[in-house]
């Protein structure tokens, strides 16, 4: 081996990783400074997918913003709808019919299942298990997308929830189909865990990598599975009990070390808890209207005021902050995206690890660039 000349031996190498890098999950760029293969500095660069979401929403009516929220985190459009309609309901003081609340919980938990399945598949793909786990996860996700399509008309851009309810009632046989999918998902999870969770290579690759200390996670405002993997017990479904989450029995899985493996495992366990919620909700759902007929969807003009509605989206705390001046469009519309806030600690997690680990650390944060850049 030829040794580099002495004047080059202490040189740092700066790499622009992305925006076209296949492992960055979208158009995301990291400026990584490397000493050999070790990361000494990392700067995330956002903004490649900026679509002016907030300003567009300040021009459109309250109803017309719902399809735009689908496109924030395009994997979980149902929970995006939910967070937005929740804040509009707070702003305008609207009540939601009982059946609609149950439908929201069902579609929300289905969304969590498919998001975590996708994430686990992509994360394992980033770790080198090419194709197989991702395809298994997508096979299962497809069944949930079929449910969404028969319910709302679209597989990913559902545009389904409305202020004070949902757009339409469940089609015939939908609940049975959903129950079947939920039952099948349990055996899929067993299969998925048998596939790789105990795999020695995966354990060696992910344990102790990208540790996020609980103190730092709390200070940085990290939420969602990333925070719970560090051992902080904070789930908005339990803390806020928005909707009707106080009626369901489920536990919040916590990690111990806060490394990549814990973040993966917390999501697998969360899927099992989601299945418990789904099972209860699908059996308890009452009959009744799904939309309050007295509420005007079209010309909604809430009284002047402000409201912040937040939910536990699959990626963390998704909140919408709205200020109304009494007009047909919000005066100020602000999204609190979980992906963006969770990304801010990326440098702390990556320092001292190799560039190959940066890929799996980023994968375990679970970002969708539609939400980061908006």
């Amino acid at each position, binding site marked *: 081996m030829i040794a580099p000349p002495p004047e080059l031996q202490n040189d740092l190498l700066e790499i622009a990783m992305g925006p076209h890098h296949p492992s960055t999950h979208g158009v995301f760029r990291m400026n990584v400074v490397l000493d050999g293969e070790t990361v000494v500095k990392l700067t995330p660069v956002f903004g490649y997918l900026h679509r002016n979401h907030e300003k567009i929403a300040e021009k459109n009516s309250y109803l*017309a913003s719902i399809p735009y929220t689908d496109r924030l985190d395009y994997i979980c459009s149902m929970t995006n709808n939910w967070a937005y309609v929740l804040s509009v309901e707070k702003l305008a003081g609207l009540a939601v019919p009982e059946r609609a609340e149950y439908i929201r919980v069902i579609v929300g938990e289905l969304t969590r299942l498919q998001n975590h399945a996708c994430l686990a598949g992509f994360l394992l793909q980033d770790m080198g298990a090419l194709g197989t786990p991702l395809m*298994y996860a997508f*096979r299962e996700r497809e069944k949930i997308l079929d449910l969404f399509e028969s319910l709302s*008309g679209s597989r990913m*851009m559902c*545009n389904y929830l409305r202020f004070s309810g949902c757009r339409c009632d469940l089609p015939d046989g939908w609940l049975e189909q959903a129950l079947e999918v939920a039952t*099948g998902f349990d055996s899929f999870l067993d299969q998925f865990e048998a596939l*790789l969770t*105990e795999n020695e290579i995966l354990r060696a690759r992910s344990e102790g990598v990208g540790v996020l200390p609980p103190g730092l996670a709390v200070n940085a405002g990290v939420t969602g599975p990333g925070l719970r993997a560090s051992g902080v017990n904070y789930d908005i479904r339990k803390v806020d009990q928005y909707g009707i989450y106080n009626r369901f029995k489920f536990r919040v899985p916590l990690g111990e070390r806060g490394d990549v493996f814990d973040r993966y495992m917390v999501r697998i366990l969360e899927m099992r808890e989601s299945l418990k919620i789904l099972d209860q909700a699908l059996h308890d759902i009452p009959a009744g209207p799904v939309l309050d007929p007295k509420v005007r969807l079209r010309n909604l003009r809430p009284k002047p005021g402000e409201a912040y509605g937040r939910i536990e989206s699959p990626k963390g705390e998704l909140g919408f902050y709205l200020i109304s001046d009494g007009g047909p469009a919000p005066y100020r519309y602000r999204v609190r995206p979980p992906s963006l806030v969770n990304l801010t600690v990326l440098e702390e997690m990556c320092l001292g690890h190799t560039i190959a680990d940066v890929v799996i650390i980023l994968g375990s944060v679970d970002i969708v660039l539609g939400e980061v850049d908006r």
Partner: protein
Amino acid sequence: MLGRGILRGLMETWRNFQGSYYDPARLTTVQYPEEKLPPLENARTIPFLIYDGEDPLAGLRCTACSICAVECPAHCIEIVKDTAKKPDYLGRMQFHPKVFNIDMAVCMECGICAEVCPFDSIKMDRVFELSRDGRRMVLQMRDLAKPNHYFRQIHPTEAAAVDAARAEEQRKAQAKKAASSVPAAS
């Protein structure tokens, strides 16, 4: 034992591989252009305009009220009102559109236009094989107009409800007309 996890995972892969030859749960792929899944009733793609009767342009239900154009999140609908009024299915005089364009390059297929239309005129189609020659992305009235029996065919439940509501309105209007015309005649 080191390697047990790997072997267990490989067993799972082997079971899946084997199953892909005979197990219906694993045969999930559809050979698309030759095979197609049955279309779902709720599926939505692009909007279309419903007309009654034979002539697509004369029978349009649209009254050029522009609610859809105002509510459209992407503002992709352009409507120009015709100056003349024509009677609608209840005999009321209504405006009609002279121009009704939808810019398909901008439309995001959300279905808000169909949701807010008070005349059941604009509905969501479910065609998805939309590629064609040329670069014309703006669909005009003639491209958008589709007959009511097509709507009944693609969304039977919704169409039945719409047709029933319209027939009921028509019946009421005729009864009212008959009631008001009887004293005048006597």
